[in-house]
């Protein structure tokens, strides 16, 4: 750059060269100004558009079923405390504030948090719950008045994330806890309320502090600049980016007030990485680090979060607790120094431990199988963008307690069976539903339940083996003039020539015939010969139709082999089939979702309870009776080595050819579970239905302790006395006579004399006596 000769005498004409240069400089700066102005206008538009419009993409949040409390409910104190722990309730000696719980013997006091459900707002309130054994014996409010029913807030079990995998819990600025705003301002931008976006004072102060201390201790960016950087720009450090940032910060301050900017900051600031998920905003940070809602945080917790803003990875309290503690205490010093809180409060806060919950990475505590089900059901009604951006709240029927019991049953059983050759390659799946409501309560898609991957519960279509048999017997029992539970059938070898000329020769599992048996015994003992014969009599197409009426539309060919379960189904389909039987002949489509709300809590969609009667309750009652006998005397009888005899259950084992698939499907009054075991490569396993899947099922039922099966006897069913050895009608006064259910009109006529053998073989009598006990 050249100078003019006489800078102080502007009247003296400058040289021609300088004049030209000045002219150029002027023109250039004019052009520059225009460009800058244009850029500013553009930035202004960007700032306003993003800020005023939809600000953040918020993933959909998926919630488990809310735990309902009422007197007389079957709920153990331990299960209740498990739920409270998962919800982040603090254990204290007295339940003082929201989110606190106190346990005194059999009484649990808590202050619930309240929640916005589809039906309306459940208020936060004090509740005293008294337990007696495994039941809730009393429920009362703070004033001692009895409460009818109370709902806890639902546990959040997952979300549906967009590609950028940001996650946040949106907070409003009037919901923040005491001290948060002041602490943030004191630490990051103490002139926040007085500057216009950029603060030269802050920059100067930061320069002074850093040069005098020789290290980078303070930053000169305002909160607004930080917001701009995170919200609009990348973290690329360059001069041009810094300038853009400064301009945008000033524009932001021009259009929006301090509160709005602060609110945006609170929701945008990056506070941590959880595996692949980026944690943004103090709302989610509070849950992520303390398992508590933001409004419940105390000063020492707030100080930690604010301190982490400067370097979320560097000050990660789980990885570097010492650094985090030092940083937190530094923040607390600033708080005292600037008078945000009293010295006494700060001293008390400094004494507190960090208080972060242990596990931050939630990779192995997710419930991928159930969430997969939820996503599939939602995709039928919503586009992907709605799911990943609109912050929808999805309420499901998922029961985390049952899920954990199912997962534990599976892992414990596999551990026990580990010695068997080939057990390691066996995979598994499990479906747990409530047969009375048709809701899916737990879902396991693989042996390692927490791993997301192939969801075998929904997608593994495998031959169901003997699980098909109830549909054969149901088809028969719908014709009471021809078949009753005590009809005689022949369990003898036979062969059938198919339409293609192939001969089908079924075999029993134990390779031997059993002669003449009662119809129900073919089901209880899972005999192939009698079942196949029965199925051919009623007709394979009719059996397949029955399966359709049970709720599963299979496209199996009508081959005789289908009668023994050559056809394939997924565990969910099996559950659907058995659900109709468990539910008295009423088909209920299986639901995982109850309702959907918008991000603001407005009701959006409901998935209502629907049923369809597809079977006569009488026929279902008879099939249930036969399936109870599976458990009492048939292939499922090992369950009563573990479970109490008073727990009436019905079920069916299933083993496909060469034990490639091990199945069990069974139910009580309020719980239905299907377990499958098999190899993904369809190889042989060392398990039958009884030695494999049934073991997991039994272990689960032991933990779940459901209500015993008790279907009301339909009006067209009568109990008739019969002689146990011949099936002929008998009388109540005859020794050894037993009662069996029959459709009215199909029972054997009452006997005139007590027929049958007077002196049965000793062993048989003992066996009979054994069952009487």
């Amino acid at each position: 750059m050249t100078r003019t000769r006489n800078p102080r005498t502007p009247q003296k004409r400058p040289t021609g060269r300088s004049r030209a240069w000045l002219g150029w400089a002027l023109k250039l700066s004019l052009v520059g100004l225009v460009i800058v102005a244009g850029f500013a206008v553009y930035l202004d538009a960007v700032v306003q558009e993003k800020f005023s419009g939809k600000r953040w993409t918020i993933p959909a949040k998926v919630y488990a079923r809310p735990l309902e409390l009422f007197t007389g409910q079957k709920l153990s104190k331990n299960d209740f405390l498990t739920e409270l722990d998962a919800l982040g309730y603090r254990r204290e000696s007295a339940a003082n504030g929201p989110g606190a719980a106190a346990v005194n013997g059999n009484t649990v006091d808590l202050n619930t948090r309240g929640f916005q459900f589809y039906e309306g707002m459940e208020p936060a309130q004090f509740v005293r719950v008294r337990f007696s054994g495994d039941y809730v014996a009393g429920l009362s409010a703070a004033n001692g008045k009895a409460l009818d029913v109370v709902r806890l807030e639902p546990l959040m079990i997952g979300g549906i994330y967009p590609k950028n995998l940001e996650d946040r819990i949106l907070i409003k600025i009037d919901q923040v806890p005491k001290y948060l705003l002041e602490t943030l301002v004191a630490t990051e931008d103490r002139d926040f309320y007085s500057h216009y976006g950029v603060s030269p004072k802050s920059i100067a102060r930061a320069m002074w502090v850093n040069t005098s201390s020789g290290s980078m201790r303070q930053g000169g960016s305002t909160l607004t600049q930080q917001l701009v950087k995170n919200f609009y720009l990348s973290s690329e450090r360059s001069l041009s980016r810094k300038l853009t940032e400064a301009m945008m910060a000033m524009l932001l301050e021009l259009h929006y007030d301090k509160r709005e900017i602060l609110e945006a900051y609170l929701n945008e600031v990056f506070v941590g990485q959880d595996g692949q998920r980026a944690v943004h905003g103090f709302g989610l940070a509070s849950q992520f680090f303390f398992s508590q809602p933001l409004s419940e945080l105390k000063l020492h917790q707030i100080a930690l979060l604010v301190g982490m803003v400067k370097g979320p990875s560097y000050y990660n309290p789980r990885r570097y607790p010492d650094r985090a503690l030092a940083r937190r205490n530094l923040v607390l010093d600033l708080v005292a120094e600037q008078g945000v809180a009293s010295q006494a409060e700060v001293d008390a806060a400094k004494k507190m431990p960090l208080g972060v919950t242990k596990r931050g990475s939630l990779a192995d505590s997710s419930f991928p199988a159930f969430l997969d089900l939820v996503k599939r059901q939602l995709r039928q009604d919503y586009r992907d963008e709605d799911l990943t951006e609109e912050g929808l709240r999805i309420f499901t029927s998922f029961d985390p307690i049952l899920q954990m019991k199912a997962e534990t049953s599976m892992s414990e059983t596999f551990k026990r069976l580990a010695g068997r050759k080939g057990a390691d390659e066996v995979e598994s799946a499990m479906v747990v539903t409530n047969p009375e409501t048709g809701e899916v309560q737990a879902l396991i898609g693989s042996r390692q339940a927490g791993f997301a991957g192939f969801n075998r519960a929904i997608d593994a279509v495998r031959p169901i083996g003997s699980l098909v048999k109830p549909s054969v017997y149901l088809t028969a029992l719908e014709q009471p003039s021809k078949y009753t539970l005590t009809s005689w059938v022949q369990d003898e070898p036979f062969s059938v020539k198919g339409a293609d000329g192939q001969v089908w020769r079924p075999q029993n599992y134990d390779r031997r015939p059993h002669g003449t048996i009662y119809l129900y015994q073919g089901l209880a003992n899972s005999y192939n010969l009698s079942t196949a014969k029965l199925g051919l009599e009623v007709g394979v197409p009719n059996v397949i139709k029955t399966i359709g009426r049970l709720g599963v539309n299979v496209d199996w060919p009508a081959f005789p082999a289908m009668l023994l379960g050559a056809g394939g189904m997924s565990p969910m389909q099996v559950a659907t089939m058995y659900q109709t039987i468990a539910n008295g002949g009423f088909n209920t489509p299986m639901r995982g979702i109850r309702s959907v709300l918008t991000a603001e809590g407005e009701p959006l969609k409901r998935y209502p309870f629907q049923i369809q009667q597809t079977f006569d309750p009488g026929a279902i009652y008879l099939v249930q009776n036969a399936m109870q006998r599976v458990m009492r005397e048939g292939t499922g009888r090992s369950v009563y080595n573990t479970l109490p005899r008073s727990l009436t259950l019905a079920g069916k084992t299933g083993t496909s050819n060469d034990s490639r698939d091990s199945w069990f499907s069974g139910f009580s009054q309020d719980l239905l579970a299907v377990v499958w075991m098999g190899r993904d490569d369809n190889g042989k396993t060392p398990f039958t239905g009884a030695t494999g899947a049934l073991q997991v099922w039994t272990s689960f039922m032991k933990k779940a302790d459901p209500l015993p099966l008790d279907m009301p006897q339909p009006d067209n069913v009568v109990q008739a006395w019969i002689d146990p050895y011949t099936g002929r009608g008998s009388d109540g006064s005859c020794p050894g006579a037993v009662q069996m259910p029959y459709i009215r009109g199909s029972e054997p006529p009452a006997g005139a004399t007590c027929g049958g053998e007077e002196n049965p073989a000793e062993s048989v009598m003992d066996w009979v006596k054994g069952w009487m006990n």
Partner: protein
Amino acid sequence: MRCDVNKWLFPAVTALAVLQGCSSVPRGNIPVVDSSTRVSNSERVTANRSAGGYSTGTAQAQTLAEDSGVTVMIPQGAGASGIQTFPAANGAAPISTSPITPGPISTGPVSSAPMTTNPNPIADEPFDIAAMNNAPQSTSAPTGIPRSTAAAGGLSADEQLDGPVLALLTTAKTQQGSGDFNGAASSLERAQRIAPREPQVLYRLAQVRLSQGDAAQAEQLARRALTYANGRPSLQAELWNTIAQAREKQGDSAGAALARQKARVNS
């Protein structure tokens, strides 16, 4: 010139500002992947998971405790007798598998020809008319709500409801009254989850469905309620009337007449 100084100062200051202002750590690399499923606050559920399961407490003992007369009211238990013991008739009837003297049951030999017709058991008459007035063999169906009286029969609808179910039915009535049918159905479904076998809940749900115009579901729900309404003739009558209404709406006048007849038989 003065502008020279400014021209140098500005970049200098800016440069320093850059250095001072860039105090935050750059955000970690966020990979672009398909939507995944991560969990927020079930962290403590994990802790218990790794601890290897839960104690089921006194699960086994509980059934015994019930029989010994603990006065805990149990939804879904039968009357005042606590958990139903396993009736011999339904279970361990000791039918032997040893050789049986042949002799077919009087219903005739089992034909080997496949069935060509599949009689639909769900005609308009799911229950035998003649059977309607006969007392059922077993005790009346457990109703799913605590009852203060042991008598299970002869109660008209709306009697003896208390606790959570009554509270929710009351809420549902209010919602229905103000036209919020979705809310009413929601509250009723909540009640149903608490007491799945209480026919009054299903009855109300059927009524709401009728109001919403879903007559087919109304009929199905009423049918389900009927299976639980043994020994409650007035409730049965109301349910049959609901079925009649539903059938009328579906254009089935003959079926509606049949249902009304059933209602008269019951009331």
